[in-house]
């Protein structure tokens, strides 16, 4: 009998360890050269290889949005993104939003509106909101709610999150 943890037919055919792959990723304006395993997600690259722990691991299956970051300006979930695929990309995490010590308008708006309780989903909410505003597809509260539906807040701060986004949207005028 096989001791494989996988159902029959799904066992790995080889047991040799695949080689690590060299990637170049720009995170928050800083170039990084890393050697990573093919299965290392961008989320694990950020947290475990670069010590950028602002980006949070929630469900790890693309369902909660806590790991949302911007890749080449677009919001994505870093838990379902293989690090090797982001070779050459520009990544922005919550740590990269403030400039010259001044909070990003979205960060300031989240504080102004008390748009969180425990704060675990907040980095993802903020990155997602920044992209939402740059995308320019949401103007009404209904549209904000729909286009933020990929970010779950189990404390239920949704009402204040929408208010924060509306404030930031007004002050940013569509600019990142």
């Amino acid at each position: 009998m096989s001791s494989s943890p996988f159902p029959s037919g799904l066992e790995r055919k080889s047991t040799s360890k695949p080689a690590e792959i060299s990637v170049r990723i720009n995170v928050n304006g800083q170039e990084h050269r890393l050697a990573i395993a093919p299965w290392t997600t961008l989320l694990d690259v950020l947290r475990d290889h670069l010590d950028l722990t602002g980006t949070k691991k929630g469900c790890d299956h693309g369902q909660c949005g806590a790991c949302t970051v911007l890749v080449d300006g677009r919001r994505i979930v870093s838990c379902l993104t293989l690090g090797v695929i982001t070779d050459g990309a520009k990544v922005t995490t919550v740590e990269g939003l403030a400039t010259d010590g001044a909070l990003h308008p979205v960060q300031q708006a989240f504080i102004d509106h008390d748009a969180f309780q425990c704060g675990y989903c907040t980095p993802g909410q903020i990155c997602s909101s920044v992209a939402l505003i740059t995308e320019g597809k949401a103007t009404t509260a209904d549209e904000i709610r729909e286009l933020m539906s990929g970010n779950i807040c189990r404390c239920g701060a949704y009402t204040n999150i929408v208010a924060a986004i509306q404030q930031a949207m007004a002050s940013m005028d569509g600019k990142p």
Partner: protein
Amino acid sequence: MIDFDYARASDIPDAIRQIAADPNAKLIAGGTNLVDLMKYGVVNPTRVIDITHLPLNTLKETASGGLRIGALMPNSDLAYHPLIEERYPLVSSAILAGASQQLRNMASTGGNLMQRTRCFYFYDIATPCNKRVPGSGCSAINGINRINAILGTSEACIATHPSDLCIALAALDATVLVVGPTGERTIAFNDFHRLPGDTPQIDTNLAPDEIIVAIELPPKGFAENYSYLKIRDRLSYAFALVSVAAAMEIERGRIRDVRLALGGVAHKPWRKVEAETALRGEAPERKAFTRAADILLQDAKGYAHNAFKIGLARRAIERTLTQAANGTPQIQAIKKIR
């Protein structure tokens, strides 16, 4: 996720060569479904072939007046493309009814067609599932089957196809352009996905050594009278219990042409030509819509927890056809059903 090798395809022939050479390899584009399945141990490729660098992310008009959508175009770019919004708003609406903006930014058009089912048992490697391990049995038939299929099922599998985009593409008679070792061929959209039969492990008629390069939309986009209505357990970011894509052309108070496809109810987007034939020439009214719904759902069969889908689908069909006829399509950001 278990260990796998990573390779990058340099061009389309290289991608075909690599996938043909290794039956345990998988292509990766957006990765939103594949990476998730690998994390659960449902799919365990020994090698992942990265096709994200192939030049397949453009949208072009075809000689016949339709559109050719590159397989790597992200779902979000497709939904917001001016030509799609203007000429094929059903496609745009269906995409925006699915997933989240983050996932739509990642997910590719071709990959959307290749999504596996969301049947709970398929994802749970501790349970038997004929789709995951052929011959092991179906846990859903006598298990928790609220989300499962009511049409086209078999003794082996009652899984549903999860895509929203595909329901619109099926309704619009799109075609899938694929390339394999012997060249290019086209697959009519309704022939692309399969019913489970006794081989539920095979979701599509794409050969293992072929890749999707484009989706083609015919000229007719039904931009005036269409609607995509998705009914689910929460208001956003959930898979369909039932969804309906409806499109029609009305001339002098009569239905001249019509399309009707269902999602969330079968192993593939569900269309039945007879239901559409019954509507042609009729006045766009409730009575005709009910008859079309009856024809479409004629062979529906409920299981312990999903029989409610039959009545739900009937009402959703009537409502979506009404929305299409009135020119008041469901707006995905507004949850009130008009």
